[in-house]
């Protein structure tokens, strides 16, 4: 796989630093930028005390990326502060998800992490109310075709993205962590119930266990691959946090309640294989799922570490597998046929129709 040097860095930074020559550092810089991990690698070097062994040039680029991520952190916090008034009087929980939650909690994995938009989860019954509040605070839906909008509202787990008219910030307002129309039925009630309020803020954050389960669901129940490496690395850091906060027992029990054990096991199997993650080993041993590697885990490992052909085959299978989870077949079929047909109709209306 092309990202091998970056994976090598992430699995064992000190060995990488010791062995890397100019060519390897050049590839590293390129890959780290491509995966949005430059700043994160910089903080890894810093926290592991390796900075003095790193070439000056690499340090400069790391610091450069760190500046950018620091600006992003400020933008996020400032935006959340603007939203405090919007959600301050809401009589329902507003839960930060993904990057926004990692940052708000200052998890070590959030240092240098790049993100594009703010993900917020509210109970389904209050989605409309939350959307209206955001609307009056200056957030409007980005222009969408009627078809896409209908798709979001009917099949997806979120409102179409909302953008602030002045600040440009984009909010993804979720009512679920996974499309309810899919073949998987995930119960997020426990995630909402256990969510913890942030002191001084109107927002809540999921427990670490739920943050991990969400990230695992996000990765293992879909078909995309372009952020694979970053997603896996997020899981690695999150699981270590889960262990530190002694939520290993809890995470297993929560996975059962939410019916997402398969994502948890897939994630643990990958983390064990790649990083020899001890929390993953403990979970897998305790619940005797150490031996048989599941298909999801096998495909991810093949995509990350396999040779060209194996990685390619794994990607095709991953694509099919992800799609079959995400949508029941009749919906998938509808989507596949209706979307191009709709596109042609649009094209006809906008460009080809004689006027």
């Amino acid at each position, binding site marked *: 796989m092309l990202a091998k040097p970056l994976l090598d860095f992430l699995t064992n930074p000190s060995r990488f630093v010791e062995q890397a020559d100019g060519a390897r550092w050049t590839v590293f810089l390129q890959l780290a930028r491509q995966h949005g991990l430059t700043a994160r690698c*910089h*903080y890894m070097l*810093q926290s592991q005390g390796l*900075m003095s062994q790193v070439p000056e040039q690499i*340090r400069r680029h790391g*610091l450069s990326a*760190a500046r950018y*991520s*620091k*600006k992003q*952190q*400020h*933008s996020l*916090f*400032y935006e*959340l*502060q603007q939203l405090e008034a919007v959600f301050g009087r809401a009589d329902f929980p507003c839960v930060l998800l993904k990057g926004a939650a990692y*940052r*708000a*909690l*200052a998890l*070590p994995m959030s*240092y*240098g992490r790049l993100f594009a938009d703010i993900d917020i989860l509210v109970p389904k019954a209050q989605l409309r109310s939350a959307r209206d509040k955001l609307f009056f605070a200056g957030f409007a839906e980005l222009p969408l075709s009627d078809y896409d909008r209908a798709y979001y509202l009917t099949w997806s787990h979120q409102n179409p993205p909302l953008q602030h008219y002045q*600040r*440009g910030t984009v909010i993804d307002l979720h009512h679920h962590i996974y499309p309810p129309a899919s073949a998987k039925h995930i119960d997020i009630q426990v995630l909402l119930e256990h969510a913890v309020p*942030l*002191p*001084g*803020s109107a*927002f809540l954050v999921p427990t670490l266990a739920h943050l991990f389960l969400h990230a695992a669901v996000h990765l293992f129940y879909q078909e995309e691959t372009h952020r694979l490496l970053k997603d896996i690395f997020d899981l690695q850091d999150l699981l270590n946090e889960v262990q530190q906060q002694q939520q290993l027992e809890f995470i297993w029990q929560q996975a059962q309640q939410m019916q997402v054990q398969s994502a948890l096991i897939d994630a643990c199997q990958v983390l064990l294989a790649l990083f020899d993650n001890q929390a993953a080993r403990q979970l897998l041993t305790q619940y005797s799922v150490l031996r048989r590697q599941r298909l999801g885990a096998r495909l991810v490992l093949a995509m990350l570490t396999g040779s060209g052909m194996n990685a390619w085959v794994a990607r095709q299978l991953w694509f099919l597998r992800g799609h079959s989870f995400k949508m029941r077949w009749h919906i998938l079929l509808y989507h596949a046929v209706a979307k191009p047909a709709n596109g042609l109709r649009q094209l006809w209306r906008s460009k080809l129709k004689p006027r």
Partner: protein
Amino acid sequence: MVTLSDVLSVCQSYPQWLQQQHETALLQTRFNDGSSVVFSLLTHETSIAGSAEVESVQTEAKSI
């Protein structure tokens, strides 16, 4: 080199950050021709100090 303060400001959680924002800090530069500019640490906006009409710099980074 990254300074300690760089690292600390990144380690800050949102609740910690919120607490600090009660006192909105401004940085001000007085130039030797008498004119002056200010930068808000909260909004990250820059403006000309003292002018009735405040000109401000947008918050989006530009590219070529």
